């Protein structure tokens, strides 16, 4: 069995909004770069599957040479190989085509896992486009995966619960975060071993971009609005707080 995990290198997702700056419509280069938040959950899920199914685990990324040092963490976490498709497009169709090329190149991939967010401002569309291009099924928001014979049993996390699904054949799954797939801290010998593993660099292809052009990007100004709730009755305060948060669509 061969599992591929898609991992991308993104600017620190925790840069406080007050500190956030754009250059050329993109996050400023001074921000620390790291593997995408949910991608680490996908890697962890992949490592667990690898351990359970004695599978091979390949990490695939689309990006630049500088990303390699960051991506080595995925190897240290348990990936067997790292394939980097070289390119800097942020068009989801182009990225998906490049990833497809890498997956086709591997030849025997059974399952592709990816974090539920994409680097395309978190719209998370790359995986579904990729699944379409591969002609495989796409299942988003997956929290658990189990292999049973020829079948994959998966749990899909919803706001209000879980849906269990099963499918056979190949698939692209986007992975959500649950306590069971909190990314492991790589152990020291794996970090050192990862440094020595060769990385397969693949020349990217131009692909077919969307027929859309970026006109402008704007970051919202940070604004804080304070409201004091009366706290004579704690239960009532809590109810009011909850309804206000719902009204404002925070919950």
């Amino acid at each position, binding site marked *: 069995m061969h599992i591929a995990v898609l991992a991308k290198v993104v600017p620190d997702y925790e840069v406080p909004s*007050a500190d956030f700056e754009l250059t050329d419509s993109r996050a400023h280069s001074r921000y620390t770069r790291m593997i995408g938040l949910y991608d680490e959950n996908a890697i962890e899920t992949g490592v667990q599957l690898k351990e359970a199914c004695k599978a091979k685990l390949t990490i695939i990324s689309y990006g630049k040479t500088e990303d390699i040092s960051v991506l080595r963490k995925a190897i240290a976490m348990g990936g067997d190989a790292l394939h980097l498709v070289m390119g800097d497009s942020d068009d989801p169709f182009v990225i998906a085509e490049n990833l497809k090329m890498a997956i086709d190149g591997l030849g025997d991939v059974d399952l592709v896992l990816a974090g539920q967010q994409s680097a395309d401002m978190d719209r998370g569309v790359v995986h579904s486009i990729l699944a379409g291009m591969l002609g495989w099924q796409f299942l988003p928001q997956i929290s658990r995966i189990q292999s049973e014979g020829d079948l994959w049993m998966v749990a899909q996390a919803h706001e209000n619960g879980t849906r269990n699904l099963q499918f056979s054949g190949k698939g692209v799954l986007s992975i959500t975060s649950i306590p069971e797939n909190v990314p492991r801290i790589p152990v020291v010998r794996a970090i050192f071993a990862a440094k020595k593993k060769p990385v397969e660099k693949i020349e990217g292809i131009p692909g077919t971009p969307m027929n859309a052009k970026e006109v402008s990007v704007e970051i919202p100004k940070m604004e804080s609005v304070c409201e004091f709730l009366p706290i004579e009755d704690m239960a009532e305060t809590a109810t009011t707080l909850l309804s206000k948060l719902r009204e404002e669509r925070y919950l």
Partner: protein
Amino acid sequence: MTRIPYWNISYGILIDLFALVAVIVFARGAYGHWLRIRQGKVRVRKAVDLPGKIGPVFVYALVTKGILGAKLYKKIFTGVAHGFLFWGMLVLGVGTTLVVLNVLFGLPVFQGGFNRWFMSFFLDLAGFAALIGLLFFLIRRWLPPERLVTPKARIGFSVQIGILMAVIITGFLVEGIRIAATGPDPYAFVGNFMAAWLPGSALAAHRILWWGHGLLCMLFIAYIPYSPMMHILLVPTNTALADPMPGSKMGVMDFSSFDDEDAEEMPTLGCTRLVDFTRKRLLDYASCLWCGRCHEVCPAASTEKPLSPKGVMVTLAERLTNGQVEDENLIDDITEEALFACTTCTACMEACPACINQPKTILKFRQNLVMEQSRIPELMGKAMTSLEQRAHPFFGTGSGPKEWCKDLDVPIFAKGETEYLLWIGCSVTYEERAQKIARAMVRILDRAGVSYGILEESRCTGDPAKQMGNEFMFSELAQTNIEEFDDLGVEKIITLCPHCYNSFTRHYPPMGGNYTVIPHAVFIDQLIAGGKIVPRSGGQSIVYHDPCYLGRRNRIFDAPRNVIGRLGRLVEMPRHGAESFCCGGGGGNYWAEEVGTRINQVRSKEALDTGAERIATACPFCLLMITDGTKKFTEEPKAFDIAELVAEGLE
């Protein structure tokens, strides 16, 4: 009348043969201890240059803590009882030896003043004192305090106490019958008292008691290594070999063999079995008295966390005794939750009369869990991931690195121009409440006209990684800092956080980073003493919470108190100074989901109970923990860093 040795006894010299047997059995048992301890690794440590250190032996510590038992007297009744017993038995031992020397070589010990004062009065006094000590310990074994039985009581002490009591009582009976038969010995006050009640004609009973006394003595000696009484040798040895520098000394690790293609074998990181520990650690476990003093002072144990430092020691001691040195289940038996509940406050070390380094053992297990097994509680893991990704552990922070100094004109450290590096540290950079410490310190330094500057990029020293067990991450962060300091030519550093101070002074020098480091509390004290700043006294009462990493670990107690003394009336909590109670934030536990009572609430309550108007501290982690802790009891902001109080007094 001159006392006659072996009075009424035939073949008394035979007792020396029994003594020889006892000594052989004793030596065999003691050798067994050595064989067990020898299974640990040989300690590789550079000699610490201390006056009076001979080879690996810290002579001062051996005398004060090992022989005089200075730490025992922190519990006055136990201390005095132990003193009575130990010194009493020692004097009795000397007396017995003198008798043997008299018999063998005619040493004139039964003559004149020496006989009257030492052989009669002093030996009776010693026996009496030892008996009182034994009675105290016997009663305490029957009615034990909680610390002796939690999580487990040590059996075996009572047998030896019983034997010793029998030895002393038979000794007095023998003396009483002898005096009753041969006439009073005015200086042997116990013997005379006994003689008043005993018949001088009971010569057969005297003989039986004499032999009973002698054989029980030999039994006691032979049994020592097979009983907890072995502590009379193990504890002084452990004390003599324990580095007297306060706090847990974790050293730094060399990871070069992990990078070395030709290295035969990579070392195991941290410890998972008893054989992974050094001989000194195994000696720790063998020396443990199971007295529970560490358990009693441990903030984790006293707030219903699953950790008991005594429990850890007891588990290891039992495995060592049973020869289970290869047992891989140690960590699972002690439990991961217990090991990560340690705040590394080192209160246990401070309290331990046997000079045992409990936190070091705990941290060695943590190192293995984190660096070899990738096992760590979720929140700590997130903090560690953040450290790896962003060089600070404050994940989910809403603050940017420059937020603390917005609207302030803070100079950047300039090579060759700036005198002090003001090291801001991670908590002060990223935690909103702690940011005020740096803002206050900047005001103080500006007012005092100090030449200082900050780094352009803020970073953590690596302390949280080290205390959570990730020595590798610590060394990477420390190396980055050292390289930057070298580039900038940094020589003097002012720290705002005692954790940074501790790292810079203890862990950076072995990695090549040598600086003059001054905690901000000390620096402020110096500025006030030098008249550089003159803060106004608000006349308020201020209670001071000693941060573990500043006080207990680095013995800085006076400077912050001097500062507070200039600002108002200093109030002390019942637990302060070296006996201070942790805020709960150390050892990565700032990122812990606490079970049981929250440590910061216990400490905050203790501070509030003093009735002081304000709570002062000198550590950003303590400030954050206590600010949070007081919220349970009052809405009023009560906790402040001393820099904030001083800056307020400058306005």
